[in-house]
């Protein structure tokens, strides 16, 4: 019995540790996407002049980050504890969540494969990508502070 308890406790600890890893990993993916979006948005907003090199470099980085969005690995069931804003709705609607993640990856890959040639193109690209961000964050993320 005691052994079972210890095993259970160990299992629980490992589980929460691995969740912590998943939470950190998915936040890192989100952050790297955000980082790549920054220079693109500066061009879309007109704060910086259009620069094909900057656009290509950041779209590539964005695509690399987006393709790391492996739902099964980054969103294991039950990983809602600790420093996360992920809502339980993710696991209640996993098919929809997975579909949205796949669409984000496809949209980013598409944009990255045909690098926009001017400011208007960057605006259109960000519009297409941004729909995906909001689409998921609408139902699956809750702001805590």
């Amino acid at each position, binding site marked *: 019995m005691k052994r079972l308890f210890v095993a259970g406790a160990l299992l629980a600890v490992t589980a929460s540790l691995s969740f912590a890893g998943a939470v950190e990993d998915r936040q890192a993916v989100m952050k790297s996407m*955000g980082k790549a*979006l920054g220079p693109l*948005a500066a061009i879309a907003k007109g*704060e910086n002049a259009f620069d094909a090199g900057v656009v290509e470099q950041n779209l590539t980085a964005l695509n690399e980050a987006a393709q790391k969005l492996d739902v099964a690995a980054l969103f294991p069931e039950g990983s809602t504890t600790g420093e996360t804003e992920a809502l339980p709705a993710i696991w209640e609607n996993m098919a929809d969540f997975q579909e949205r993640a796949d669409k984000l990856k496809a949209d980013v890959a598409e944009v990255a494969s045909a690098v926009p040639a001017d400011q208007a193109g960057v605006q259109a690209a960000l519009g297409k990508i941004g729909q995906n*961000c*909001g689409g998921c*964050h*609408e139902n699956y993320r809750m*702001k805590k*502070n």
Partner: protein
Amino acid sequence: MSKTTLGRLVLVVVVLGVAGGLVLFYLSGPNRLSQETVAALPEGDAARGERVFWAAGCTSCHARPGAEGDAILELAGGLELKTPFGTFVAPNISSDQQDGIGGWSAGDFANAMLRGVAPDGSHYYPAFPYASYARMRPADIADLYAFMRTLPAVPGAAPGHVLGFPFTIRRGLGLWKRLYLDPEPVIALGPDADDKTRAGRYLVEGPGHCGECHTPRAFTGGSKTNEWLAGAAAAEGDGIVPNITAGEGGLSWSAGDIAYYLESGFTPDFDTVGGAMVAVQKNMARLPAEDREAIAAYLKAVPPRPNGYPARD
């Protein structure tokens, strides 16, 4: 105490009770727009009304839950808003004659928007944000009315609200309105405030009804205007709605950042819009750029307040 004294006392109590009841009854009655105001409503323009429609965010609550694409123009209702007062269900406000508002006159519509009064004289619950809409210009109401008549008629009434006592007594809302229904602006702007900031005040405080979620509420459900836009615990769930003043914990964004966020959904640090704000941002993205710039200018002019919700550890 003699019998006659006791009798008199009872009489006094009864008379006072009846008088008090009459006063409460009077105070809680529907306060409709005057006939002159209704008669003076201009003929609405549907094209201008579309801009009002997106600013006022009608579809965010009145479209079927989860509707996307053109379906957001089918205002069949049905969205549930689970609040501490109970569950409110957004009604059908499509142009359907029976189940929607297709049979309404412009005056009926203006009374609903500006006074929260239904055509039959009953009060609407302030889940319908008429406390904000009350600040709208009658001409905009007329335009919105004209636009909404062009939207599809969708048959089927939405289910009713599910509320606990005493919130089931609609008449009591008449008293609530005496406290919280005020067409005057919340934030006084100095004479040096420019037209853009004033336009933003109108959009935010009136049709945009931003304060309904971003301002904390008293236990009565009324907005605490002394903590205007300071952020609040969300009405649903245990999340928060951010402080959008420049106070501690609030927005440090530039006016350009705010306008760009409303257009694209991207924050300056490349997080993105989330939660209920997603639907709002989509509406804002449909407005002309000058409206988003006006909103940004106003938000920069709002007095800074610390967060209107308790800190978490």
